[in-house]
């Protein structure tokens, strides 16, 4: 089944690391820096991607990723359920990103994009070169993401890009699952409108 195979892709990659999260946490709590380094290696990419999707600035995303892992290290003893390390990390990252957005006194939930790949579509025709297409597509997705309000962007990023379950997203965001589903449905609809030229002729719902 296609849907199942698509969902399973990221978890297969995550399983390649030998140490369990529980074991790494226990070792890190005992002061083993190497264990925390392995936790970083495992989660740095999804965390920095998530933060980047939330704030839209590359340098700031790196800075906030640093802050996320430092906070995680300092509060490792506060993690109650070691099996929920990734959920916990995403929760910290969400808070760090939100604080940053508040600090910048953003009056709107829309984020600015500092990526030069954002390209305005003129006639809906796709360039033939695949690499160029991917670059352009990434710019369009990023731009579209930046137009979502905070709640929709949050749930869309966690569900579509990070493939978290609704239960995990509810824990990370503190929102109810019905609200998350509603926000996600609306976010998908908004995103679909923006990327529809890339979905092929006749793509309409």
């Amino acid at each position, binding site marked *: 089944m296609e*849907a199942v195979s698509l969902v399973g892709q990221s978890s297969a990659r995550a399983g390649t690391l030998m140490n369990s999260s529980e074991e790494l946490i226990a070792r890190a709590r005992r002061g083993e820096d190497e264990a925390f380094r392995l936790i970083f290696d495992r989660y740095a990419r999804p965390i920095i991607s998530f933060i980047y999707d939330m704030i839209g600035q590359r340098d700031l995303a790196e800075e906030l*990723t640093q802050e996320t892992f430092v906070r995680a*290290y300092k509060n490792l003893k506060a993690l109650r359920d070691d099996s929920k390390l990734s959920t916990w990390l995403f929760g910290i990252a969400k808070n760090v990103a939100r604080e940053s957005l508040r600090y910048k006194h953003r009056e709107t939930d829309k984020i600015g994009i500092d990526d030069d790949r954002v390209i305005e579509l003129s006639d809906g025709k796709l360039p033939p070169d695949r690499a160029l297409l991917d670059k352009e597509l990434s710019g369009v997705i990023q731009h579209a993401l930046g137009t979502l309000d905070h709640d929709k962007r949050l749930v869309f990023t966690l*569900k*579509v890009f990070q493939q978290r379950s609704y239960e995990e997203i509810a824990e990370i965001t503190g929102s109810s699952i019905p609200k998350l589903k509603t926000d996600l449905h609306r976010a998908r609809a908004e995103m679909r409108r923006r990327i529809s030229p890339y979905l092929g002729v006749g793509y309409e719902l």
Partner: protein
Amino acid sequence: MNCENCQSLIEDYIDGALDQKSVRDMTTHMNSCAACARFREELVREQQLYWRYDRGLEVSTALWSSIEARIKQDRATRASGTISRMRERLSGLIAAPRFSPAFAAALVVIAIGVTVAVMSYLNSPSRVATVATNDPDKNRGAVQPVPAPGVPEKTPDAKQFVAPAPEESRPTKVKLAVPRRNAASTATPTPAQLVREAEQKYVTAIAMLSRDVDKRRSQLDPMLLARFDAALTDIDKTIKDTRRVARENPEDPIALQYLLAAYSKKVDVLREMTASTD
């Protein structure tokens, strides 16, 4: 399952958020419904587009280095904070060092008071002194206090203390008659006891001042510090010598004067060292 139900659940289907029964019902319906099947294909294609989303982000080694540096800094800060708190608690229990200068000063005042009382007592008309020894050389070990180099001279002089008498006529041992007015009182301290009390207060005050000075040594000019240390060395030698003589001649007022004057001198030098860092 009809098309409306299918389309309301199709996002959960794509997300893998449905139970197995719902997945089976959806699959059965889409196998027989071309419109819903196409809908599913479009959503899958949409999802695949999102997976092609390349942010162009790299997790640099510098990122971990920054995190590691901050972790180590945090650890060091916590460790130093713990040590500081322990030190504060210990010092609070043992020495109360923040109040030591004032406390030391109070002790010195008391010691000086006791010294003055001893001297007044020794020099009072009611005291009857008799030369009770035929060994005139016995007190020759008394050492003159050594002036500290670079430190204002405050050691006993002719105005401040009774000058030692010429050796031939100086009493080497003094026997004190019991003062008449206190003859009935057994609680009246003897001069030796008073001197010992003053000495104890000087020793305590010097210990406190020395601790403060040790903390401030790094703030002193090295040349000045060397001169202070030389002065303290000389004074310590004087204290040692005069204490020995005073012990051997517990009722010799001159020996006692020199001993207390040496202590006083050391207090002065330590105070000056402390003042030099303020």
